[in-house]
């Protein structure tokens, strides 16, 4: 490896982060901090309106962390991500209404349906170039929405209403504040799960595929299986998000699952920093709260979103809080643990340990 990879440009972070600020950003307690803020929030603002928006934001965080698995870790562009949310929401709605089950009992059905949907779309397209996947997922998003619009079981254009809330251990959690807490705990576990997945063996394989698919294949990674795994994990996260969405609003209709929503989730991932769970969480919170503050601007705010998306890609493609590359041990095997394969921030470059390109040894 070390001969082929220009290791002088590969970022390597060995030892402590250089500045206090970046130490703060990389601190392990940060996740607990965010969790604590989310828990304290209802004590500050507990109006129905605030709880409604906060719960929506928390569900949006779940969606963004799911899309982060697909786009951030594995580098596959999914433009119809909201379709998985739709599959999850409709499955939860239909099953819980038909058998009068509490929504949480629909989780197995939701998992089965979303995995099936992920397989149907992923299996044929993941063998092709990654940009085919982008457009097929775009089409898939439309298929799901139109199908929900046309079928009678999904309630047609008016959708499904009267979906029960969450009941757990005999407790009724369907009031705004308890439901918010339930969402926070549920989503935190899944966000933690996605972060752990990113650090697992599979997560390293995803990153490798994202950086260089051919090299990954040559190193013995079954790229097709790995990509399909990313796609299906993303689908599961999206489906569970849909289940929460259905329980939250108690009514779902095809209008909730338009392309705009997929684009907003993508926006959260891209702005936050592809591949970095913390950045994605912050991005999701910002993107879901921003429309509340920019309500007066009408459709102009989406123009700004579009322009920002272009500007971020041109000027700072790694996002505002990019993933940092760490090496698991202080080895100098010269392995390319590069981040998103795009430009690196100047601060990052300054901290590089100079490495002899030929041998991979630190100078």
């Amino acid at each position, binding site marked *: 490896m070390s001969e082929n990879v220009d290791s002088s440009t590969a970022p390597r972070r060995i030892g402590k982060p250089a500045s206090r600020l970046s130490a703060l950003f990389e601190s392990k307690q940060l996740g607990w901090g965010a969790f604590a803020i989310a828990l304290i929030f209802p004590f500050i603002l507990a109006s129905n309106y605030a709880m409604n928006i906060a719960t929506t934001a928390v569900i949006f965080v779940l969606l963004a962390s799911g899309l982060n698995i697909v786009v951030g870790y594995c580098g596959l562009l999914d433009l119809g991500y909201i379709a998985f949310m739709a599959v999850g929401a409709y499955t939860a709605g239909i099953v819980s209404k038909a058998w009068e089950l509490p929504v949480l009992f629909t989780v197995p059905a939701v998992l089965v349906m979303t995995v099936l949907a992920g397989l149907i779309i992923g299996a044929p397209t993941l063998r092709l170039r990654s940009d085919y996947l982008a457009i097929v997922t775009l089409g898939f998003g439309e298929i799901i929405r139109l199908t929900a619009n046309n079928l009678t079981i999904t309630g047609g254009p008016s959708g499904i209403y009267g979906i029960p809330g969450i009941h757990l251990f005999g407790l009724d959690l369907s009031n705004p504040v308890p439901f918010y807490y339930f969402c926070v705990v549920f989503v935190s576990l899944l966000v933690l799960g996605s972060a752990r997945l990113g650090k697992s063996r599979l997560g390293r394989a995803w990153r490798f595929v994202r950086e260089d698919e051919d090299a990954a294949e040559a190193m013995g990674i079954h790229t097709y299986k790995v990509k399909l795994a990313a796609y299906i994990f993303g689908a599961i996260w999206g489906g569970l998000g849909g289940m929460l969405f259905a329980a939250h609003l108690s009514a779902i209709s095809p209008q909730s699952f338009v392309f705009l929503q997929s684009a907003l989730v993508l926006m959260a991932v891209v702005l936050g920093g592809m591949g970095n769970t913390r950045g994605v969480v912050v991005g999701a919170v910002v993107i879901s709260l921003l429309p509340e503050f920019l309500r007066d601007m009408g*459709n102009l705010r989406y123009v700004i979103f579009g*322009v920002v998306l272009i500007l971020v890609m041109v000027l700072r493609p790694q996002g505002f809080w990019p993933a940092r590359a760490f090496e698991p041990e202080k080895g100098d095997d010269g392995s390319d643990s590069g981040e998103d394969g795009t430009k690196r921030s100047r601060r990052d470059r300054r901290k590089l340990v100079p490495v002899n390109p030929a041998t991979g040894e630190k100078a």
Partner: protein
Amino acid sequence: MTQLIWNGLFVGSFYALIALGYSMVYGIIKLLNFAHGDIYMLGAFIGFATLSSFGVIPASMSITALLIVLLLTMIITGGIGVGIERLAYRPLRNSPRLAVLITAVGASFTLEYGVSAIAGPNPKVFPVRLQGETFDVLGARISAPQIVLMVIAVLLMLGLNSYIQRTSMGRAMRAIALDPKGSLLMGINVNKVITWTFFIGSALAGAAGVMAGAYYGKIDFLMGFIIGLKAFTAAVIGGIGNIKGAMLGGLLLGLLEAFGSQWLGGEWRDVFTFAVLIAFLTLKPTGLLGERVTERV
């Protein structure tokens, strides 16, 4: 039956016009230009704006006015396509694919909501509505405007084909599609050729937009989204990157759609189209006329 075939071919010629731009750009720089469908929408709105500025147009003049507007719109949308390439895609020419795709989504978003911010989110009614007598040909009802639009579409496609086959710019485009680095070494101004490609592709999409606006009479700012997807499907059916394939794919998709919605009902038309896309990608991803491309590392 003949009615279905005629309807399919008519709609298919719109798809073909838009698919051409998709396919040309993809063939040359391997970029899926998501904003392409929105250029079509933009064409419809520019046609709407210029036609409205003419004031009241007598019915006898509507075809002439439409042709003038068509030409004007093609130039403007072509210019906008070039602008998008220059601002959004060129800085990322050597970036990973993911970055360029996301930029394309951003460009599409900007165009859609930019138009809705300027023109308002409600659908607009086109000032010129093509009406004419209908003929019966082999049991199919064909109207005069349909024939006019079809002739314009076919002329544009034939013109493009001879442009690519006969002129030196066309040869340069084919060369870059084969090997961009080699063409650069042979002294071809690659950036200029890419600019022209975007100009031509966007001009064709703009023309299709004006024609669709004049024929259907109603335009809205999201009209490019679905049609962009369908044009991509057409390009895939024909073999993406292949000019004749895009035309063939467009017509074929129109026919498939006409028969599909006859069998399944109109509300399933779009679902059927995307199912065709997925089926094609599974069974024959190179399309009907495309060549098998092995990626070089």
